[in-house]
């Protein structure tokens, strides 16, 4: 749970940075950062090894780690350890006292099975209804898509819609894009209706199906559409749309308070970004102006040297000459503008540049996606080792257990900066901080001797050594956590978050 928040905090930071870039450079950064949205939760759940985001939410209450003692010390049912119980639920204190490993049962039940499989809920009638609804919705979507593509009227309508989006687009050089050859007065209502119907069905289907892949698919389709056609929806559309997808993905039904807060946060941030950084449109416009000015200069310089005349250029030129002759100033200006545009396009945008741009953008997006996860990926092996070590706390081999527990003590000391570096552990007593409780050094050195015996001899240690070591660990954790300043606590939390 905690890990997830780190990722989101990072993302928000990234989004802010990208907005800044957008403001200054007129890139399609908005697009990239939108692209990051849906990918994050999916990656997060795959990295943290949790099957299901929902399941983690269920367990969230108790995974809030041992740091907040008041919470975990709340009386739940205590029962003896059974093989297969998660290590983090062991009640160390009691276990150490009783000499037997005890498990803390919290009020939250172990992942209820029916919540996992949401397509097949308990009641049969509801299940059938849901199934039928899903089929109907799928059919509607497919039908809408087919109608949109196959019926000429609606196809033209959607093309006209596209043209309008082009016009409204924020993309750099928006004026340079080729419009679909559709009359401007084309009736767009059937197409718009179909599109809306499709979108609505998609949303309902998403909520019903709760399939991560569907949401990811939608996000990918939207992104590819935007990248390929070069239409970036305005940021205030993009951010909520992707945010909604992310929210859906994160926790499929927004019943959790935390999720609502998260969604609200995203919306607030995006709205704030749009309000506080109004330069997105202005910067785009300014950049376009500069490009155009430069290009016009070049065109005038090299006029006539362009051998290959693009399609329709001759006619435009002809009309241009004609309107100049007839003195139709308005038409002349319009045609001149078009000619310049065509030439600009020819000079500035060879086709391969477009593809390169798409590839580069995708690469950049991939790099940005990986970036916040690198620490987790790098430290994942360490986390696994720590998990293993915690399992060995209970190992039947006491030597193994003592070894692992003592290592944990050392880890704690090192994490709070109280370690003595490359000294033998038995010599650490001299360097331990004064803040530790009375007689701690003696207990530590006793445990260090046990550790040495466990590591360097073939002896079988008696069971009480494990208890001693566990007591020491408990004491270390308590003492160090109490004395840790804010920075160290942060470090400990981060470290625990990797180990949890």
């Amino acid at each position, binding site marked *: 749970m905690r890990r997830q928040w780190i990722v989101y905090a990072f993302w928000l930071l990234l989004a802010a940075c990208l907005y800044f870039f957008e403001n200054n450079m007129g890139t399609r950064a908005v697009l990239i950062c939108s692209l990051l949205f849906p990918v994050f939760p999916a990656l997060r759940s795959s990295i943290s090894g949790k099957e299901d985001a929902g399941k983690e939410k269920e367990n969230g209450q108790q995974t809030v780690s041992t740091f907040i003692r008041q919470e975990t010390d709340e009386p739940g049912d205590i029962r003896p350890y059974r093989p297969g119980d998660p290590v983090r639920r062991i009640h160390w204190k009691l276990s150490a006292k009783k000499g037997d490993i005890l498990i803390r049962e919290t009020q939250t039940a172990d992942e209820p099975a029916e919540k996992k499989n949401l397509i097949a809920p308990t009641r049969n009638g509801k299940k059938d209804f849901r199934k039928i609804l899903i089929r109907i919705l799928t059919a509607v979507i497919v039908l809408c898509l087919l109608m949109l593509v196959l019926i000429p009227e609606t196809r033209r309508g959607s093309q006209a819609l596209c043209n309008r989006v082009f016009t409204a687009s924020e993309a750099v050089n928006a004026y340079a894009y080729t419009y679909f050859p559709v009359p401007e007065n084309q009736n767009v209502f059937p197409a718009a209706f179909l599109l809306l119907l499709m979108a609505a069905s998609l949303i309902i289907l998403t909520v019903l199906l709760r399939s991560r892949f569907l949401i990811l698919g939608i996000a990918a389709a939207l992104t590819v559409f935007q990248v390929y056609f070069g239409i970036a929806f305005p940021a205030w559309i993009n951010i909520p749309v992707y945010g909604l997808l992310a929210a859906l993905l994160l926790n499929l039904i927004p019943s959790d308070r935390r999720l609502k807060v998260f969604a609200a946060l995203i919306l607030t941030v995006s709205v704030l970004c749009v309000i506080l950084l109004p330069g997105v449109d202005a910067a785009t416009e300014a950049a376009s102006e500069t490009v155009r000015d430069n290009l016009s200069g070049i065109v005038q310089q090299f006029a006539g040297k362009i051998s290959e005349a693009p399609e329709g250029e001759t006619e435009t030129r002809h009309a241009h000459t004609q309107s100049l002759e007839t003195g139709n100033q308005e038409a002349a200006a319009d045609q001149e503008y078009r000619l310049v545009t065509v030439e600009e396009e020819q000079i500035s945008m060879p086709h391969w540049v477009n593809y390169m741009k798409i590839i580069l953008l995708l690469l950049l997006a991939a790099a940005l996606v990986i970036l916040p996860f690198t620490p987790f990926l790098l430290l994942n092996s360490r986390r696994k*080792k720590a998990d*293993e*070590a915690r399992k*060995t706390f209970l190992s039947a081999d006491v030597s*193994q257990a003592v*070894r*692992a527990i003592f*290592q944990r003590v050392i880890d704690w000391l090192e994490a709070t900066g109280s370690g003595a570096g*490359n*000294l*033998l*552990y*038995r*010599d650490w007593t001299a360097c331990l901080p004064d803040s530790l409780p009375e007689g701690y050094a003696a207990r530590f050195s006793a445990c260090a001797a046990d*550790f*040495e*015996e466990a*590591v*360097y*001899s*073939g*002896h079988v240690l008696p069971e009480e050594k494990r208890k001693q070591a566990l007591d020491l660990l408990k004491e270390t954790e308590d003492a160090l956590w109490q004395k840790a300043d804010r920075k160290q606590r942060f470090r400990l939390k981060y470290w625990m978050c990797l180990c949890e």
Partner: protein
Amino acid sequence: MRTQLEDVIREVEKVIAGKREVIEKIVIALLAEGHILLDDVPGVGKTTLATALSRAVGFSFRRIQFTPDVLPSDITGFSMYDKESGGFTYRPGLLSRVNLLLGDEINRASSKTQSALLEAMEERQVTVDGNTYPMEKPFTVIATQNSIGTAGTQVLPYAQMDRFLVQLSIGYPDYEAQMTMLRDRQTENPLESVSCVLSREELTAMQRETRSVTMKDEILDYITKLTMASRTHEAVAVGISPRGALFIGRTAKAKAYLEDRDYVTGSDIQAVFRDVCTHRVLLKDGSEHSVTQVLDDLVKKTDTPDHRSRFQGIMKK
């Protein structure tokens, strides 16, 4: 601490006050069946120490003062023509029936005498005229060399220094110790009061037990890393030899045995490392550091086995 060995140390301490550390080290060297090189100024009690030790453990003790005139045959013995039998008979030298030999100022002996002694130290047998005579067991040599007044001496070659297990120095006693010493010696010789608390057989058995002390791979790894680091250290011309590494292990075992453990830990290695290696490291000319500093540096820079053993057991599992 083994009680019997503790007794030995206490007996010796009667004579040399306040030098417990050195005595312990000498006992360790004894357990590890090694020879000891004492590098010290005259008059700090080298001979007294050796005598007291030999008394405490029931050793037969002999002492030889080396001068350039001492010949190899004085040490190994020689064959002499016997008129009555008409053949050669072997006249045993210094090395016969001796458990503890104190060779004073070994660097004053001629090089051929030195080599005769050192050979006997290594082989623990004496060969004269093709006949091999075994020596007493255990056999330990405590050789001394004075660090002052070295004029006219034959400095022990590096290769021969390598044969000593440890190089120790007793050093001057502190105020308290010297006062005690002066007080004790006014009327009687405390050497008389040293009693035999450990038989030769028991010591031999202990030496055998020392050899069977457990030394895990982590520790071997530590020794190897330490010695290899000494060979690449910037201030070192000649690093610790493989024999040196072997000796570190042996001495560490004895140290563990002395502390009543049957396994070697990293602290044992660190405790003996300096004594075993001081005379094995040759620094480069014009080096600013002393050997001790370099050795400390090596210990500081090499990862201790405690650190390296982290999670290793789990990985193996």
